[in-house]
């Protein structure tokens, strides 16, 4: 029982990290129809700058703040310079954002060096505690808590505020939103920056979880986020959360019981969803 519980916590923590990365991706795709392959670059820059500041100041909290600010800034630059000229053209979007992803990845090596960096959780999040016979690792619980908090804040904004209402309407029908007198480009930019900040947050949280940092990690992890967006339904925020948890749990359990299949399970899940429900688990209605 304690093993299953431990795998469950592990899967939920991984799922939450994927969710943070996928949340921005699904909003960016849903609202702007942009396939942003540079999202992994934002993840890795958030991780590196956050860890750099964390190791310099010994404050993990400040590291998180720096990662988020980095995400917002790179998100702004990416939207203005890279994405804006190719709105409406998916082929160009794939090429230019993938290219920019590689640039961001290589720039990491230039700025921080090519070697892997070991990262540990801060003291107050290190170690574990026992609940009955079950060992609970503090840092994994912290990731789950942050994921729940981010989901709650985003849902509150989406459901209860005017900007959230505009974003939800924009995901369904951009043209109509413009016809109602709303500057959709401004909303695009805002959503892109928030999405980038969430990717960066995912990056800094992932670093102590995996224990080390390397430049290629962004591309590897963003593939999982794309799978989650497809499974959850492109543009669906709730769909992304559920799909991310599903992928995280599937990966955790498969890694223990069928290690050889642990990487294939995500692709398998995506294939099943695409065959039986091509629009994803949650469809945004126009």
């Amino acid at each position, binding site marked *: 029982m304690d093993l299953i519980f431990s795998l469950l916590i592990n899967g939920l923590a991984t799922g939450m990290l994927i969710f943070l990365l996928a949340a921005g991706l699904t909003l960016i795709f849903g609202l702007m129809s942009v396939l942003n392959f540079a999202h992994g670059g934002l993840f890795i820059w958030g991780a590196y700058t956050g860890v750099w500041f964390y190791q310099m100041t010994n404050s993990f909290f400040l590291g998180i703040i720096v990662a988020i600010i980095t995400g917002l800034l790179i998100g702004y630059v990416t939207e203005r310079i890279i994405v804006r000229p190719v709105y409406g053209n998916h082929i160009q979007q794939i090429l230019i954002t993938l290219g920019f992803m590689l640039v961001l990845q290589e720039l990491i090596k230039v700025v921080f060096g090519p070697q892997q960096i070991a990262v540990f959780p801060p003291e107050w999040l290190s170690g574990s505690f026992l609940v009955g016979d079950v060992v609970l690792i503090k840092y994994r619980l912290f990731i789950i808590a942050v994921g729940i908090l981010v989901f709650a804040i985003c849902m509150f904004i989406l459901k209860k505020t005017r900007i959230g209402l505009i974003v939800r309407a924009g995901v369904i029908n951009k043209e109509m939103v*413009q016809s109602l*007198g*709303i500057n959709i480009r401004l909303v695009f930019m805002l959503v892109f920056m928030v999405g980038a900040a969430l990717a960066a947050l995912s990056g800094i949280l992932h670093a102590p979880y995996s224990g080390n940092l390397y430049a290629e990690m962004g591309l590897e992890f963003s593939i999982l986020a794309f799978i989650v967006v497809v499974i959850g339904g492109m543009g669906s925020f709730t769909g992304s959360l559920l799909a991310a948890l599903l992928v995280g749990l599937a990966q955790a359990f498969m890694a223990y019981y069928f290690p050889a299949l642990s990487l294939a399970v995500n692709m398998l899940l995506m294939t099943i969803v695409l065959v039986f429900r091509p629009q994803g688990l949650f469809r945004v209605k126009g």
Partner: protein
Amino acid sequence: MNSLLNLNQVAANIGQYHILHDISFEVPSGGVTVLLGRNGAGKTTTLRTIMGLNPASKGSITFKNEEISRLKPHIIANRGIGYVPEDQGIFGDLTVGENIRVAMKKEDEGTTKRMEWVLELFPDLKKFWKKPGGQLSGGQKQMLAIARAYVNENELLLIDEPSKGLAPIIVEKVMDSINQMKEKTTILLVEQNFMMASKIGDQFYIIDDGQTIHNGQMEELKEDKVLMKKYLGIS
């Protein structure tokens, strides 16, 4: 009579296709101006061009004597033009209330009064206030689309084929609501249903192959069987 909207030799393309060649007309302040024409003549594209959704490639469009043809759609809308597209543009996942709230530019007394008035006009919207827009019937969606355009202080409403796909009894209801609305705002209406157009229209323009080819008072058109047969296919 003052001209509220003026199109002068407007041309517009959709991709590589030239849809509008020479559209020229005036919408006077007050009443209902109807754009008539066969399917594919360019009526919907004309409304989209006015809204800036299909930018004009040539010509001029002035609203309250100011050029708007190079402006972005949201700026045009904020100048005081409301738009009800052919597909109604309802946000299916949003409730009826949210569909209206997202359109409200202000929450002042005037907006509240207009909303109350429009909800009296369409009581179904009040009844289904918390229902997702995607679950409404075709007629209710049309009412929601019109209400959404009316809720702001717009001086001109562009309404594209409000009777399309609706049962005759619902068409009557929509027609009645537009008739009441025309007392309060100017309307530019695209309509295929000539019966409806002739009952609520004051003046008309006929569009054929991307050009305005004829105009006049609606009363005159009803008498002109030759014109109706030639350009509208009505005998």
